[in-house]
């Protein structure tokens, strides 16, 4: 494609999943305890989508990547310092809650509205990327809902590979049950891709990319509009973390069978 793609990546931020997360009840509904104290990261699923978008854009001259992200502004800023050295993109921030208890419909409405507001976005070249699942919105329907609101009919979920064919059409590998992939084809843009993990490693930090990105990201953050996702449609009866009992032993190069035997023995003993 001579003019390249307009790739919009929906990628929100989540509290670093490596931290101990503890749901609490607040007057406004469930929330994470001390959420503002916790480090935030780009949702790992969305991260894969962003790296795939940057890779596709690099191979299609004239392409451009936007990252549309919903989160508390201070946390968005923090996350940008981590990812903005990796790939080139333009940030479209939405200053709002990202604690993981937002209704997927309400989040999708905000994200779709932000995408529609992107100046110069050519819908005929639009590829909408995002995470198939989300580390915080496990319903896994946000991307589908955004696509429906934007009228994008070609949707693929659990995508691991997107290959542009010589005629400009796409071949898509989607995850299906049994650890296999379904191979699909579509004509081209506009289309929506909910990414699984893809095949790309995390890009290296490149200071020049970072410096160029940040010149636009900081002004964008300063202009970020505050938005509160509507909450009427969703009520939580309760929220609790999975019960866990940690007993760690770090051993390397142990055969899978031995690991399995040890776990079985531990479960039987517990």
């Amino acid at each position, binding site marked *: 494609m001579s003019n390249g793609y307009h790739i919009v990546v929906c990628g929100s931020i989540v509290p670093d999943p490596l931290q*101990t997360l503890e749901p609490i009840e607040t007057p406004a509904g469930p929330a994470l305890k001390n959420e503002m104290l916790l480090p935030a990261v780009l949702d790992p699923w969305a991260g894969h989508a962003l790296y795939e978008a940057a890779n596709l854009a690099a191979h299609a001259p004239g392409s451009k990547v936007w990252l549309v992200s919903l989160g508390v502004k201070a946390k968005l800023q*923090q996350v940008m310092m981590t990812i903005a050295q990796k790939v080139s993109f333009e940030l479209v921030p939405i200053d709002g809650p990202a604690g993981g208890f937002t209704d997927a419909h309400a989040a999708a409405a905000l994200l779709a509205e932000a995408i529609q507001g992107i100046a110069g976005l050519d819908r005929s070249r639009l590829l909408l990327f995002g995470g198939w699942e989300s580390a915080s919105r496990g319903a896994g329907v946000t991307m589908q809902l955004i696509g429906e609101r934007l009228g994008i009919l070609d949707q693929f979920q659990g995508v691991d590979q997107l290959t542009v064919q010589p005629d400009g059409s796409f071949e898509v590998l989607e995850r299906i049950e049994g650890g296999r992939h379904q191979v699909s084809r579509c004509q081209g843009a506009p289309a929506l891709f909910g990414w699984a993990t893809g095949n790309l490693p995390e890009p290296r930090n490149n*200071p020049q990319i*970072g410096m160029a990105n940040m*010149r636009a990201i*900081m002004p964008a953050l*300063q202009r970020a509009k505050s938005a509160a996702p509507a909450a009427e449609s969703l009520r939580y009866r309760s929220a609790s973390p999975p019960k866990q009992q940690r007993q760690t032993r770090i051993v390397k190069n142990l055969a899978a069978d031995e690991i399995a035997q040890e776990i079985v023995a531990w479960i039987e003993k517990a």
Partner: protein
Amino acid sequence: MTPVGPDPAATTDRQQMDVDIACVGFGPAMGGFLTTLSRELLNPDGSPKLESSCMPGGPLQVICYERADGLGFGVSGAVTRGRGIRRSFPELDLSQIPMATAVKKEKLVYLLDPTGASNRSFALRAADKVIRTLGSLIGCRENALELPLIPSFLQKHDGFVLSLGQFNQWVGEQLTSSGLLQIWPGTPVSAPLIEERAVKGIRLADQGVALDGTPQDGFMPGMDIRAALTVVGDGPVGAVGRGIDAKFGMPAGHHYSEWALGMKMVIELPENSGLETGTVLHTFGFPEPGIFGFLYVHPDRLASVGIFIPSWFRSPVRTAYRYLQHFILHPYLWRHLRGGTLKSWGAKSLQESGRRGEPYLAGDGYARIGEGSGSTNVLSGSGVDEAWTTGTQLAEAVIELLQQKMPFTRRNLEESYVRRRRASWVDRESRVAADSRNGFPQGLISGLFGMALAGFTGGRVVIPPPTSRKIGSSLEERFGARIPPAELQKLKDEAAGRSLPLHDQIMNRCGWPEIPFDGKLLVSHQDALLTGGSVQAPPGYANHVSFLRPDVCKNCEPKLCVEMCSGQAISRGESGVPQFDREKCIYCGACLWNCRAEESGEPANVDFGAGAGGLHSTLN
């Protein structure tokens, strides 16, 4: 060009970027520097106040690289008087900084040994007996004696309690939101760029390399960031500061002779803990006489609890983690902490040589600030505010030089930055403190006496400095009287056979009780690595710890680098050479100063380079 080894990118293009000021390490010193500088970058109409020389007509190009994956991943429970911080933020509202609060209650507490296992001198045992005999008459309860007075030089009653991670994050947010300068975490800097006698910038760490540094697929040579001024604030174990030391040496009579490992936990207190927000406890006497401890109570039922293990604590058994658990279990503290939950954990090396460890503060093209510049006051036990203040002093000097269009030469920086520093309270108080700890290598009582002597005489009368730089006794010297030689040898052989450190077996044998793990607060060392902040080691970077001369390590016993390693990242290798696992390394740097090669006058056998990753916790 640099004091580093062969360049793996010799046959590959190494990119280069020009900025005006390149900064290394984002801690309180750099926070002070960038906060002060950022306020002078733009005129009210938005035009550049200080113009860039590398981007003519544009604003000053300032960039800062931080090794850790986040700006808030620093480790230090801090209580500080905050004189310099308050000068930068006259309207400081502590409620805006998570986990910050004013000091409300401060106590200095001597902890007796409730276990009978600690290594106390005859004099100390006699003193303990007297204290126990007098008991409640002198206020001794829960195996502890709250001292009626805190020496003025130790008091922090007008200060505040901080989580350094949260404070750094708060400062970083203010700075980056302005868009005037850039701070990049997750970007280790491998070395200074030195041409002839001038620092010309920094080199970022190579990416896409194997653990031994050899290029692999996706190899990306670390970029050279060239700058008129390099601001070095990468702390006491940072690769740039140490690279500059290696090239230019230290001023006569100055050396990094004293260190400590600070290890802490952030604990969510039980609801009925009885501890008031803003409470500050300083302790000494337990778990060993040479180990100092602290407890600071933050808002929202969080507390920082930790210990310091100094380099003059010569025991070859120096597991900070287990000692920290015994500290928490002391009855005086446990009555408050029982039922608490571990929220975070971490450790760092502290450069405790104070003024005697001050390197050259400035040279052609560079200036040094913060802990790595010897700013920590070893008498008051204060470092954060001093570090912050040195950063502000450098910023004021840089602004002055830029306004006068003067280059960043050694002479200009000495007349602007160093002159300011010498005239400040930081330097004045560091002179008082310079020899205050000389007594500790002889024991706790002489150490405390030396501190009091220096503190109350304004540093005019001090105990002479120790002549030996020995960092560790042998096992036989330390434990020969308690453990028969044959049994000691058996313990050593067992530990070597299982590639384990010795400390647990020795401590058990000496009567230290087993830790009653509860899965919440008292957890295994490995569980703390995962629950207390989670250690990360991003792929594509080389090992940042290596052992230079294998023969030296093979013959070294006891291996203090193994015993002291905060994350159990260094273990006994089969050949006798320690093994390093960067997936457990929390970048505390203890291995660097626990190498016994230095005792015999050899250079340290541990190479500690620029590493990515480490702890992921902002609570520390």
